[in-house]
């Protein structure tokens, strides 16, 4: 039978269950599968454990009361160093927080990706990473002559990974042309199911060798592909479009207002993705957002 992994955002989100552990790719305000996140915001899902290098994805899911636990290296919008809805959730004590050194998060995903119970590292030792932040983390002694004591970073197994790429085909082949692929590949391997949203979908990618080097992970890892043109908005998708600084400021201002999140939802999330894109100025406006210069 011919492989066809194309699904709609609604179909893939309908396949998720409350209580799941969901890894979200990208990094802060960069290349987040926000169209899929918005579909979760519209759903009845709750008690989720969200894993990643967080930005608006984690902040919005916290604001909407979807989160039981966050496993994060940070939750930041870069030019706004601290995600305001994440800050509110933390200071209210409403979510469980597994705060990790950025490299430890990578290591936990990699352990899961390799189906190992843990991977050893020095990162986190001699700090409060264990003592105050994650007392469940354990240490391990090298069985070799060095006898070094190391932190045993446990595998962070994901039920689902949500990732965003430039291009995909119906077989699950993908292309990612971003300056930094971040840790999406480790998430794809750490997850039982990997859902990839894309800016362009074709029947079958048949590229030259040079282009094939931009394949971030093999198609057997990809469970479903979802066409979401402009789907990373308000985060960036480079090359393509930058993050929407004005929208992100508007979103952050909502965190300071009474009923700010409800107002944001009413203004932007009341309808479907087409309605969202219209509310933020249209798809052309999204895909013309200039890339940030650092």
């Amino acid at each position, binding site marked *: 039978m011919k492989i066809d992994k194309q699904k709609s955002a609604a179909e893939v989100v309908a396949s998720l269950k409350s209580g799941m552990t969901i890894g979200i790719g990208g990094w802060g305000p960069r290349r987040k599968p926000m169209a899929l996140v918005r579909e979760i915001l519209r759903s009845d899902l709750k008690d989720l454990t969200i894993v990643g290098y967080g930005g608006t994805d984690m902040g919005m899911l916290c604001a909407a009361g979807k989160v039981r636990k966050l496993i994060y290296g*940070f939750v930041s919008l870069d030019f706004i160093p601290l995600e305001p809805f994440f800050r509110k959730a933390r200071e209210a004590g409403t979510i469980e927080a597994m705060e990790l050194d950025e490299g430890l998060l990578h290591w936990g995903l990699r352990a899961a990706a390799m189906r190992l119970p843990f991977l050893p590292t020095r990162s986190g030792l001699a700090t409060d990473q264990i003592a105050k932040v994650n007392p469940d983390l354990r240490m391990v002694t090298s069985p070799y002559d060095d006898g070094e*004591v190391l932190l045993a970073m446990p595998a962070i197994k994901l039920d689902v990974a949500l990732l965003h790429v430039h291009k995909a085909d119906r077989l699950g082949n993908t292309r990612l042309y971003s300056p930094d692929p971040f840790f999406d590949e480790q998430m794809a391997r750490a997850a039982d199911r990997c859902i990839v949203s894309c800016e362009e979908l074709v029947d079958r990618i048949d590229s030259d060798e040079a282009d094939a080097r931009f394949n971030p992970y093999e198609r057997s890892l990809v469970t479903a592909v979802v066409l979401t043109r402009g789907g990373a908005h308000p985060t960036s998708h480079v090359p393509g479009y930058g993050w929407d600084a004005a929208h992100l400021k508007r979103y952050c201002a909502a965190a300071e207002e009474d009923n700010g999140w409800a107002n944001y939802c009413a203004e932007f999330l009341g309808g479907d993705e087409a309605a969202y894109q219209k509310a933020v100025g249209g798809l052309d406006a999204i895909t013309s957002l200039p890339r940030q210069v650092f």
Partner: protein
Amino acid sequence: MTTATDFTLAELLICACADVWAEEGEILATGIGIIPRIAQGLAKLTHSPGLMITDGEAYLVEEPVAIGAKNHEGRSYGGWMPYARVFDSLWHGRRHALVGPVQVDRWGQANISCIGEFSKPKRQMLGLRGFPGNSINHANSFFVPNHGPRVFVEKEVDLVCSVGYRKERWPAGVNSDYMSIHHIVTDLCVMDFGGPDHAIRVISLHPGVTFEQVQAATGFPLLQAPDIRETAHPTAEQLAIIRKLDPRDVRSKQLKDNPPGMRRAA
């Protein structure tokens, strides 16, 4: 080489920050924030051409990119340094980061995560970020533009994000060979960890600043280095490079009221 007489405190700090990378050779230099970032470029264009620095995103550049550039025009790249490779590089040890902690204690342990209890913080800040892994794997220095007792705290920092020289914090068998904290550059002075048992000492005072003033702004006792001196003033050559690296004078907005480098003694 002529020493300038007219310079701002921000420019003095950029020069002092650049010196944390002197003699480091071919390693990845990472300055977090405007002043440290200008400083890494200055270091590379003066005493440390071997340093590797990024464009602020994922590529290595031999010509430091200007602060506040409006586009990518004229940029060229020598290499690639995505975050996965940053981790590989830092675990390998070939990096020296200049970071901006919110709290620092007498043992050089730093906090950027939160104030208060971790479970329900009074103030959530950035989180641990890369501090635990960076600090146990490679050299680090600190930039503190607001030297005061709330930063340099009397007791231990609220949450130890980066390792320091407090022996009780190191379980038996854990390897501390790869950690080192080189310098702390503040708006008052430059310090190192050259005292007995890595005690913090002041090695240079910025123009117009006294040791007593620094001590009064610090929550723990400080030592004076035997050869304590005045922080070197920027040279005309350094100032010219700084202007090239920061053509829009973003550095003037980093310190309140953009004070002059030559401050009158209090």
